[in-house]
């Protein structure tokens, strides 16, 4: 127990860093991913191609390879970033690809007639997306986006491999110093479980709020068979 008492600030700092990595990475990923999805369905061919290439690269690269490339490769080409921001950048780039694919398949769940109706009352590409298609698509996207969040939480652990002092790094360092393995694993495990379960619960609340009554058939179990977005590690 001494191992905990003496290191409460360090542990709290580690947990705080994990939360910061996750939240920053996820929020940036939402923005970038949505922009990519809009580019992928836009009438501008080069934008469509660029977004497609982006998605294929970043959903297929292992997160650890990406983080190593960013953290150790960028200084070699003259770009220096603190390791924490390398972690945020890696998580953002990777999660954004999955956000993009989920938003795109969410757009596809909106009945064709709605987009046609929006166009026939004179809305353009952005108007149709912004006022008619995306608000409806969002309902079916809540569950997949929660899964991307959980993927980001779990992925943030890999940042300890590039020397970001988040909760995995802190607990394992203390583990070596105090040999309190079980205790340290409980702390780290609890931090991750609380973060992902908290995210899932919040997602559940949002889903019930935006789609009263109809959203329950797409529970977590059903999402396991959805392959449209690819495999997040």
């Amino acid at each position, binding site marked *: 127990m001494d191992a905990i008492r003496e290191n409460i600030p360090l542990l709290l700092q580690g947990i705080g860093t994990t939360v910061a990595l996750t939240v920053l990475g996820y929020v940036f990923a939402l923005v970038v991913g949505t922009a990519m999805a809009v580019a992928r369905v836009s009438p501008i061919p080069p934008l469509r191609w660029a977004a497609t290439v982006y998605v*294929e690269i970043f959903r*297929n690269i292992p997160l650890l390879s990406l983080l190593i490339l960013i953290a150790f490769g960028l200084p070699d080409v003259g770009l220096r970033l603190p390791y924490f921001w390398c972690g945020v950048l890696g998580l953002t780039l990777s999660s954004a690809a999955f956000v993009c694919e989920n938003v795109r398949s969410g757009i596809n769940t909106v009945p*064709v007639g709605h987009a046609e109706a929006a166009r026939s009352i004179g809305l353009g590409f952005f108007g149709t997306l912004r006022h008619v298609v995306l608000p409806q698509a969002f309902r079916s996207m809540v569950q997949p986006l929660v899964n991307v969040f959980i993927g980001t939480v779990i992925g943030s652990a890999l940042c300890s491999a590039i020397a970001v002092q988040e909760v995995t790094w802190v607990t*394992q360092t203390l583990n070596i110093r105090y040999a309190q393995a079980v205790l340290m694993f409980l702390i780290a495990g609890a931090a991750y479980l609380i973060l992902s379960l908290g995210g899932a619960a919040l997602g559940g609340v949002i889903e019930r709020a935006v789609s009263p009554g109809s959203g329950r058939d797409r529970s977590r179990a059903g999402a396991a068979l959805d392959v449209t977005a690819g495999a997040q590690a």
Partner: protein
Amino acid sequence: MSTTATQVLFDAPGPKGRRRILLLSILSVLVILALLVGALWQFQSNGQLDPGKWVVYLRADYIAFLWQGLWGTLKVTALAAVVAFPLGLLLALARLSRFRMLSALAAVWIEFYRGIPMLLVVYAFLLALPAFGVTFPQFWMLVIPMILVSSATTAEVFRAGINAVDRGQHEAAAAIGLSRRDAMVSVVLPQAVRLVLPSLILALVTLLKDSTLGYVVSYNELQFQGKTLVSITRYLVQTYLVVSVIYIVINFLLTRVALALDARMKARAAAS
């Protein structure tokens, strides 16, 4: 094929619209090119575009060295998949079982390994167990965590597949006198396995990505082999870029297969 919302977001453009699209296309091409040129310039100004640092990856000994790593990656991925997928099926059946104890145990196993990062499990084998006098060779320190984590995720995939088989199939099996077990084995499971095939291929992609953690346990898979190569040649960006491209190509192909299978199954389901 039916039309989807993404195909009707904009009208077939008129002459003015076509001009605007052309203008925006040229503009976005210029921006993309500027980004690429900027990246290349950054490489160039730091001396990383020196051809001598790149052509070495075409030399037979470099290729053999990287192939050794790739072989390690494929080996751990295949072994982990061969053990984890059947284990996942058993876990899914256990979770769906009528025996409360068994079902609860399976649920705890699945939720635990799904909720924590694999790196933590790897550290358990790397740092914690040796403290209790239990040590494994590096190969197993990588493969066992891969199996544990993947068994949990594939269990959820199998459970979703079993639940997705039409209820009528259970009822029909019961009507011709099959027991619950026989119905599961000879009626429901064969259909469920077909339904989950695309998801299993994606689970393979996840395993392949997870195998990069060999970097942490110092097992000779591709990522760690890259690290070794860097420590010999000092060509850091080049090596890690080559390694990443190999991963991207393999995962891209596997993902493509999964998506194609999924599309074919959906088309078939829509036709019948």
